């Protein structure tokens, strides 16, 4: 079976890419997508751990359960995020983060 380490590397890579995306995308949607990536990476990490490490039998499904809930929550968060993006679009006709700086200093 594939050992644990590669999975950790993949999820770490995905997190890094996700953070990079969040920092550099100019469109709010781009940032949303990057954040989805991060959450997926975390879920992957959880599942990888739940399969590979010894846990007490009461918590054997803890990892997968957490991943499942994380997905549900991510979906809800995405919905909320997108509705906010739509609001912003309606008000200031752009989703470009550079231009949304009505409030500063």
């Amino acid at each position, binding site marked *: 079976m594939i050992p644990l380490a590669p999975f950790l590397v993949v999820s770490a890579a995905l997190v890094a890419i996700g*953070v990079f995306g*969040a*920092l*550099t*995308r*100019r469109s*709010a949607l781009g*940032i949303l997508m990057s954040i989805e990536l991060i959450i997926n990476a975390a879920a992957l990490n959880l599942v990888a751990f739940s399969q590979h490490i010894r846990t007490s039998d009461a918590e054997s499904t803890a990892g997968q359960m957490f991943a499942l809930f994380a997905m549900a929550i991510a979906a809800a968060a995405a919905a909320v995020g997108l509705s906010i993006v739509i609001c912003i679009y309606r008000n200031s006709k752009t989703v470009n*983060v*550079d231009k*949304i*700086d*009505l*409030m*500063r*200093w």
Partner: protein
Amino acid sequence: MDFLPALIPVLPLLAFAVIITNGRRLGWSACLVAVGASLTSAVLAALVYSRVLLSHETLAWSFEWVRWGETALRMGVRIDGLGALMLFMVTVVGTLIEIYAIGYMAGDKTFSRFFAFVSLFMAGMLGLVVADNLLLLFVSWEIMGLCSYFLIGFYFHRPSAAAAGIKAFITTRIGDVGLLIGMILLWWTAGTLRFDELLLAVPALAGLGDAHVDLMLTAAALLIFVGTIGKSAQFPLHVWLPDAMEGPTPVSALIHAATMVAAGVFLVARSFILFAQFPAALTVVAWVGGFTALFAALIALTQNDIKRVLAYSTLSQLGYMVMALGLGAYAAGMFHLITHAFFKALLFMGAGAVIHGFHHVQDMRRMGGLWGKMPWTAWTFLVATLAISGIPPLSGFWSKDEILLGAFHESPVLWVAGTFTAFLTAFYMFRLFFMTFTGRQRDGEIHAHESPAVMILPLVVLAVGAALLGIPGSPWMGLWVQHSLDVPAYALAHHHHSNLVMGLSIAVAVAGIALAWLMYAPRPTIQPARVARAMGRLYTLSLNKFHIDEIYAALIINPTRALARGSFRFDLGLIDGAVNGMGWLQRALASLKGLFDKWVVDGIVNLLATIVQALSAVFGLIQTGRVHNYLLLASLGALVIACLTWWNMG
């Protein structure tokens, strides 16, 4: 009944309170209250000093003034021989001058205020005389200083009078502060300020031979002498007395001739036990006295204002008294003080009468030939001039002779200086007399008139006093005055009589009068103007008082004012930085130099406020309003935290 002496100073104090509170209602009758009070205290004093002088006992009464823990400060009165004599002089002269002032001050609208302050002054002087400890003496000393400030500045609408008042108070204050420190030093070394306890404590301490204690006591003595220099206008703190002539003449007579200026000498006499134990202190006193006497006489030669001449002559005579005390001739010094009070008061009042009659003109060059118009004043003035010049059998001769005798035995240099000063005294006094009373009246249109009776009476009484008062102190009555001073054992031995000294002093006096006659008589043989040209530099130096005032202005007054302005700017600039304002912020951030100016000019306090504003502006900028900047900064922050903690933990 022994608290009777305590009443003597209290009566004038009550008079002062009465006059000052209902000045308006009293109006003219204020002078009655004042004179009444001083008369009653004179009578009381008479009772007291007659008992003390005749039966050689000392009256003392004291109460506990302040207590902390176990130690307590007792205050009270103590009349001994010295006190008795001073009481006699102060009350007699004081009352006479008050009577004279009624005439002189008549018509002045602030009449009541004048008598209020005169009464307060009398209270201060009497308090000084009867005090049994240095603290009460210091209290009355300062009250007199305040009265002299008010009385000098009495015509307060005249700026010069106000300035003279301040000059007097500040200069004497410098002296008082020296006295204050001296008292405190004395308290810490001798443990007491009461004169009777000092009589025992000081010899005991001196006997120990402990160098430190001796040093402390000598320092205390010298500091107390600083007080005398201030109050009795000895060099270098003499500058205020000539300017004090701005005050009305009775004030000059009472305060700046007879009583207050003598207080300094009285102080040295009172604490003579301290000086006697340490010859170093005595020599300082002697030399300061001697120098002042000579120095003042030199200046008096060329003065043209009648009151200024008398002022410098007072300076000179005070120098004599201080020199006498410095030479250990304790009794001679005090006897001269008594006699000087009488004839100097008379001289001032005479001058006052002249000025009063001459419509407030004080310049001698415009006077002359007043003998005919003011016969009484002239006669009394002549008696006093003779007395001060030291012509026997008047009082001045006896007292001055005693001093010169003492000087002759102790320090020949001072004796020569003293004798020469005696010559100068005789010269300038008769220069004044001849310029004023003999010859023609140089300024034609002022028609002088004789003073009213109320002014003449005191003149006559004092003239009698000036004439006869020498006798009790002369060998004819066996130096009764000196012995009644119950000269303390510690005072130096009395010197035997010497004909040489007496003869020489008479000769010198006559020579002075002759020279004055030659120069200033109705038909002068020696033209004063030519002599002045001949003396050249010396004459001009003496005329403008050796530029002492200018030196002081340059050395002390202006630097103090500059220091004051500097401190205020320092306070405003460096510490407070009241000059703040946000405008500074933008410019300051621009240049490093700006920051330095900011620190120096803006002051530490406001610099802190400005730094906070600057930081606030800088950190405020990180809030760019753009989300991705936030995200970048946040993740950067997280990374930094992780690394730091790991490095810290690792």
